[in-house]
């Protein structure tokens, strides 16, 4: 498959860019932050996105979705990255939709996927329990209890966990932390007895939470995929999230880069545009090259998810690692090249640095994915 966007995908991108520039510029995120908005995104805006088919971009047509594939989802994530749009797109439309499409039974799909498509339901994926990503280290218990399970344990860094209607949670039905086997995914109503949530105000002003499960009841019907399905089924969902985050970071990095290049062309010091200094030109040209690499791996990861979902692990790690490093560089260079103004809250560039830092950490930073890649390649 050619490593370019199809005409349809380009049309989606152009439409998304126009819409987001108008309805969800960085100032919208700033407003949410300044209002200390507990939802973390605008429900009206999310409704509008859903009407355009974005919320159900990965959902099959039988369930009211657009069935546009991972490249389409990545196009939207990238555009939202450009404007730092706050929305439950990653948690609901990428992670939950992938989990339900790939692992859900027919009844689960029928119950939940249409609500994802219409934007009615917000989902969250709860995986990590410690400060660093490590799905294999899952310790949260799901103990057999009668015909069902009792879930107990803590989850952290749960995107949109503070408002989600449903939570997909990874828990251990067998084995010990560190084992690849014995992990099971449950789809739980967020209002279930025994769940407590603490909204965590994050550096990027996006919604997130710490969750506590204290003997939460789950039945066999709440299991998503197989009991003891293990890391493999969870990894598929995480890979989709990683590629989505890579796309989002790619958009954010490109936007920060564009702002920086504009600034280099207008800011004068010593009586001349600072962009004429070779010290800055070479750094800008290097960053340009890195951004081109990031765009290539991100697109490849999304295409592979569409074409060989089960085999896309290594390329998704590649994309997440590369995008994380490049976006970090782009945000750092952006602040440095803007000088003092880049350090002010009034200027938007800081929002990019903050969001990129969070996206970089989520579902594995560059070191996590470099290690994973080395292990997959046998060294």
């Amino acid at each position, binding site marked *: 498959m*050619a*490593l*370019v966007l199809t005409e349809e995908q380009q049309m989606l991108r152009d439409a998304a860019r126009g819409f987001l520039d108008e309805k969800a510029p960085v100032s919208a995120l700033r407003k949410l932050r300044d209002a200390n908005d507990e939802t973390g995104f605008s429900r009206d805006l999310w409704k509008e996105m859903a009407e355009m088919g974005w919320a159900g971009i990965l959902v099959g047509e039988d369930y009211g979705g657009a069935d546009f594939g991972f490249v389409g989802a990545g196009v939207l994530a990238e555009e939202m990255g450009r404007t730092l749009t706050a929305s439950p797109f990653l948690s609901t439309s990428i992670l939950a939709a992938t989990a339900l499409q790939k692992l859900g039974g027919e009844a689960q799909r029928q119950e939940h996927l249409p609500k994802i498509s219409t934007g009615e339901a917000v989902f969250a994926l709860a995986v990590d329990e410690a400060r660093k990503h490590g799905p294999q280290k899952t310790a949260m218990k799901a103990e057999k209890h009668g015909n069902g399970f009792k879930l107990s344990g803590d989850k952290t860094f749960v995107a949109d966990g503070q408002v989600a209607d449903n939570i997909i949670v990874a828990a251990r039905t067998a084995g010990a932390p560190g084992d690849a086997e014995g992990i099971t995914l449950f789809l739980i109503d967020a209002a279930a007895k025994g769940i407590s949530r603490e909204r965590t105000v994050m550096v990027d002003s996006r919604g997130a939470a710490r969750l506590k499960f204290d003997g939460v009841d789950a039945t066999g019907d709440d299991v998503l995929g197989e009991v003891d399905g293990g890391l493999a089924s969870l990894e598929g969902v995480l890979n989709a999230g990683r590629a989505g985050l890579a796309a989002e970071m790619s958009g954010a990095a490109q936007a920060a880069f564009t702002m920086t*290049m504009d600034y*280099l*062309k207008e800011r004068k010091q010593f009586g*001349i*545009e600072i*962009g*004429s200094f*070779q010290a*800055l*030109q*070479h750094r*800008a*040209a*290097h960053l*340009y*090259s890195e951004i*081109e*690499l*990031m*765009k*290539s*791996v991100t*697109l*490849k990861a999304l295409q592979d998810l569409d074409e060989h979902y089960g085999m896309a692990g290594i390329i998704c790690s*590649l994309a997440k*690692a*590369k995008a994380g490093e490049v976006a970090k560089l782009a945000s750092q260079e952006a602040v440095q090249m803007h000088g003092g103004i880049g350090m002010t809250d009034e200027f938007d560039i800081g929002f990019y640095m903050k969001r990129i830092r969070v996206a970089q950490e989520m579902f594995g930073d*560059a*070191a996590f*994915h*470099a*290690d994973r*890649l*080395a*292990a997959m*390649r*046998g*060294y």
Partner: protein
Amino acid sequence: MSDLETFRKDTRAWLEENCPAEMRDGAGGEDNICWGGRNWQFQSEAQKTWLDRMAEKGWTVPAWPKEYGGGGLSKEEVKILKSEMRDMKARSPLESFGIWMLGPALLKYGTHEQKLHFLPPITRGEIRWCQGYSEPNAGSDLASLQCKCEDKGDHWLVNGQKVWTSYADESDWIFCLVRTDPKATKHNGISFLLIDMAAQGVSTKPIKLISGKSPFCETFFDDVKVPKEHAPGIGSIVGDLNRGWDVAKYLLTHEREMISAGGGGLFGGRGMGEIAASEIGLEAGRLADPMLRGKIAQAEIDGWAFLLTLERMKDEAKAGQGVGANSSMLKYYGTEFNKRRFELLMDSGGSEALEWEGERTQDGKLARSWLRTKANSIEGGTSEVQLNIIAKRILQLPGA
């Protein structure tokens, strides 16, 4: 069966029948290249047979038009031929600066008569060309070149010196940038001239490099008379008089693409991690040197991302998208990556990689290759020049 499938089937059958067994060892190193030329000593009968058969078919330059000795194949067909050759590990029958550089320049800027005269001997490996661009005082600032070329009525009189002329001592002809108008601004007085190396007054001197090898020469022109026409109707200048810089720029872009593609191609063999694992060993499934393991993993990520970028740029060009000046980006990144890759290979080779002579290391093959890579980011325009080009043409930064 579609036309392309038929073509693939026929190609495979033809290659199976015509590629000698000795030419199916996948050897691609500089020592195994067949360069051709008047002085060429074939390494084996098989090498000669392979060249003759492929040249007969036009497949030493499959994309060139048939009338000039090429195969007249479409892009898709060339791709199929290459993939079939790769699958059977067939060596390339012929490589040369005629194929890489002069051919593309003639195809774009030459007259029909020049093409008919010069191209077929290139495709058959009969004439070997070298490139005369850089001069002792014209490196990164190539357009400041001074090699003098005076109009003497029926001939040109050439005086000056070229440097970094690859394999000049083994070549038959040279394509050269010379100054035909010393009064014009520096980009506007240069012409692209074809000179027979056998002409009176041409001499060469090999330059020994840090790798111990001498792939480059200094080339001197002392009162060299170059006929205005090498044969009736066959001009010795390619393109218009004083417009040689256009040809040079076109070829430099082309050269950058080739160098960066070559840098990526090296990635096709064993991975760095695999090599390091066999040399240093694993502990609990991980490379025994954890710091090196991390560096290699980072480099593999970048190398892989670079290969995908080459692929994307090709696909974008096909789809009519993309930025032309990206060849500078690819040249910059590809060569810098290749240097990094060889540093890591030297790191995993340890003290063994430092042996310069002897069978164990094939006379320091890795060490010499490592040193060779240092030229990657100098030749064809330094990394710094590429960054200048990106800043100017792509990012459109001021004053660049």
